[in-house]
């Protein structure tokens, strides 16, 4: 098992803020919009340096999406920002008609996704957004794993022409990916090679997958661990190439099992290379109030859960 180290835990939303600050300096077409959550989205630096390119929309997310779509006509690149709940389910019809169907170059960038939003509880803990967004034709869906990757993804999507849903979160997590990485949309990242099982993880669960890899190595199991930062378009080749070698797979994500990364991987495997598969995800349930750690533990989104599912799929493979 390859060793990954980190010097600091940081929040992915700050990676977004750092990416926006850099875009503010390098790309004069980038415009930021926000629905009364500037501090939560870490937009302070962008706004301070580019006040004329920041549009405060107030608590009116539907209008924000429409305004963003209209701004693209002038060749501007709007980054519409809010919490993941309010940037997906609340404005699904607006995103569908004004952004996706209309093919507009809008970047919907959302924080506080999933259970790790914590104490605010289930009203704000969106666990269905990946499913909604990946269902939209032409929508790119990205869920990076740490500060550095979120920053790199933020910068990368400005150069990509088309609608993007960029999802990140609130808590601090190990910042282990390289600061100088080039983010390739739709290109999975192999973090560890191994012959026994494929672990496909996204977002905050990528670090948990690495922790699981260490625990499995202690039992003599070498896992192939792949960071699927882009859920759509999905890197089908990377998934098939890995499972053809390992013969079984586990997915891990901070999202509902219905509609998430697990769903997407299951589709690829069942259509191309059926193999034992299990999923670490929230199983048809809303979240609740609690600390991020407590919630991830209670809903089984941990390294230990990944290990248990891995042992199960390996057993099924060997039957």
């Amino acid at each position, binding site marked *: 098992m390859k060793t990954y180290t980190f010097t600091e835990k940081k929040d992915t939303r700050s990676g977004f803020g750092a990416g926006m600050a850099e875009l503010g300096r390098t790309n004069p077409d980038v415009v930021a919009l926000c629905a009364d959550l500037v501090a939560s989205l870490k937009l302070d630096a962008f706004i301070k340096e580019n006040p004329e390119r920041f549009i405060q929309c*107030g608590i009116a997310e539907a209008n*924000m999406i429409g*305004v963003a779509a209209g701004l693209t006509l002038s*060749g501007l690149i709007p980054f519409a920002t809010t919490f993941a709940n309010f940037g997906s389910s609340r404005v699904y019809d607006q995103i*569908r008609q004004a952004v996706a169907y209309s093919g507009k170059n809008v970047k919907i960038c959302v924080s506080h996704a999933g259970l790790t939003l914590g104490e605010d509880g289930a009203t704000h803990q969106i666990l269905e957004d990946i499913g909604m967004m990946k269902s939209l034709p032409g929508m790119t869906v990205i869920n990076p794993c740490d500060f550095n990757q979120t920053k790199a993804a933020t910068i990368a999507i400005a150069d990509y022409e088309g609608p993007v849903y960029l999802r990140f979160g609130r808590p601090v997590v190990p910042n282990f990916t390289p600061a100088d990485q080039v983010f390739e949309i739709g290109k999975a990242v192999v973090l560890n090679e191994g012959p026994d099982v494929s672990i496909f993880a996204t977002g905050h669960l990528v670090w948990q997958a690495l922790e699981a890899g260490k625990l499995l190595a202690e039992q003599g199991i070498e896992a192939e661990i792949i960071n699927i930062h882009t859920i759509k378009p999905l890197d089908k080749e990377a998934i098939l190439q890995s499972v053809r070698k390992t013969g079984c797979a586990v997915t891990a994500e901070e999202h509902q099992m219905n509609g998430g990364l697990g769903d997407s991987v299951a589709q690829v495997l069942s259509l191309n290379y059926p193999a034992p598969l299990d999923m670490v995800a929230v199983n048809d349930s809303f979240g609740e109030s609690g600390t991020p750690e407590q919630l991830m533990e209670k809903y089984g989104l941990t390294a230990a859960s990944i290990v248990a599912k891995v042992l199960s799929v390996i057993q099924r493979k060997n039957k």
Partner: protein
Amino acid sequence: MKTDELKKVASQVRRDIVRMVHGVASGHPGGSLGCTDLLVSLYFQTMNLKTDDSDSVVFDMSGTGEDMFFLSNGHISPVLYSVLARRGYFPVSELATFRKLDSRLQGHPATAEHLPGIRIASGSLGQGLSAAAGAAYGKKIRKDNHRVYCLMGDGEQQEGQIWEAAAFIPHRKLDNLIAIIDFNGQQIDGPTDVVLNNRDLGAKYEAFGWKVLHMDGNDMDDVVTTLAKAHAAGGKGVPVCIIMKTEMGQGVDFMMHTHKWHGTAPNNEQLTAALAQLDETLGDY
């Protein structure tokens, strides 16, 4: 263009509308007929549109350096398609494909088929004013001194998003935006004040910070004059909203004074009766 000429175009557009809707036995003639005079005035008189050396209109998605129009109540697509075709954005013959398979003239306006003149999809109501606000904001950022027009329905004013945009636009001083409400008092399920009363729309927009004008949307002279007044009122820090009184079904007697022709196509006999009331001024498609 002189008012008499505009009226001739409007008559042809009304013929196109009823023929298009009849041709596919679906679509929305009522609101289309009511808004015909407005769209003819906008595209043939009011708006500053990009043209080439031979004075033909040229469409580019950005709308840079020209006025722009957004149709929020996308179901009145027949009037928009007819006016765009008659203005030269695409061949008039293409109107015969309205709502049919593989057509660029979708039931509700869309960009996916690349129909010249359409910049964003509309149909799910309440969204156009926000898109127009973004377009107007973009013109401000790019220092492009042109206007953005947005037409909405009065029933559409029941959508919550309209009021998000109605607050945003004056707050951001988008004085290059002119909103127009088709005040025909009808919606699918009946009179608007019975279905869900909008109360005094003019007072509401004024309270939100708009300059409000009123016009008779079926009097071409009033339309031309009021649109010019709205244009002149721009650039002073306040957006303009025009409450446009129209008659749904205007120009075809049996389609007027009722909500029943909101989304109903005429049969053969009704088509004949309608066309008998509308002069063929520019030649049918």
